[in-house]
């Protein structure tokens, strides 16, 4: 799924990342626990989270995640956006909860990791 389509179905606004040519989402993982995210062995899943701080971006960097969905109305701070831009990480913000975001994406064929 392209970022454009994905953003549309979860009603999300993109606040970081500009050139999304070739970015396709196939799998996602939802967690507020960054240590849990760091245990993932898969390449390039999308992260759906309610945790919005600099360590969310750092964790994505280490775990090779390049798309983060901040759910439940969480906003990325200017520092988060700056770091995400530098690392070429896309941040999407949605008012939907983690559960609703995950449910919609699951229904639209985004696969879980486990």
């Amino acid at each position, binding site marked *: 799924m392209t970022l454009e389509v994905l953003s549309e179905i979860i009603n999300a606004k993109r606040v970081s990342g500009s050139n999304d040519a070739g970015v396709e989402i196939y799998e996602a993982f939802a967690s507020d626990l960054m*240590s849990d995210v760091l*245990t993932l062995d898969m390449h390039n899943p999308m992260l759906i989270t309610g945790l919005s701080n600099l*360590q969310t971006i*750092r*964790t994505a*960097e*280490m775990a090779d995640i390049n798309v983060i969905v901040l759910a439940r109305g969480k906003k990325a701070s200017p520092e988060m956006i700056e770091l995400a831009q530098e690392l070429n990480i896309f941040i999407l913000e949605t008012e939907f909860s983690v559960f609703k975001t995950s449910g919609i994406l699951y229904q639209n064929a985004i696969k879980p990791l486990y």
Partner: protein
Amino acid sequence: MLNLEYTIEGGNFSDAGKASSDIKKTLKQLSIDYALIKRTVVAVYEAEVNVVAHARQGTLSVEINTRQIKIVVDDHGPGIEDIDKAMQAGYSTANARVREMGFGAGMGLPNIKKNTDELNISSQPGQGTRLEMIINLS
């Protein structure tokens, strides 16, 4: 052979991960295998967050040669009373601030062990902790 040195400031969550980020960039430049880079940076980042979360100050040094990546993290902090217990998944002494950052669930040390080929932990309660991690390149 390449050596990298970093200082980590305890309690400074804004900078937590900066050393790991720099190490990742260096390993990429050295064209090290993707899976090995990921294992290394996940282990280093968990260790870096541990220093920020628990210690007053720490140093992180990396030695890369053709055979292995060796990382030593030395901190001045409370130390670990019972290392076996700290290695158990789910055991944590982290405070609320650490948990707000998405850590402190007692997964750090087990995750470091999972991602390294060798892990040695020594600690002096009340003084500090030293982690030696090795990732084999061949």
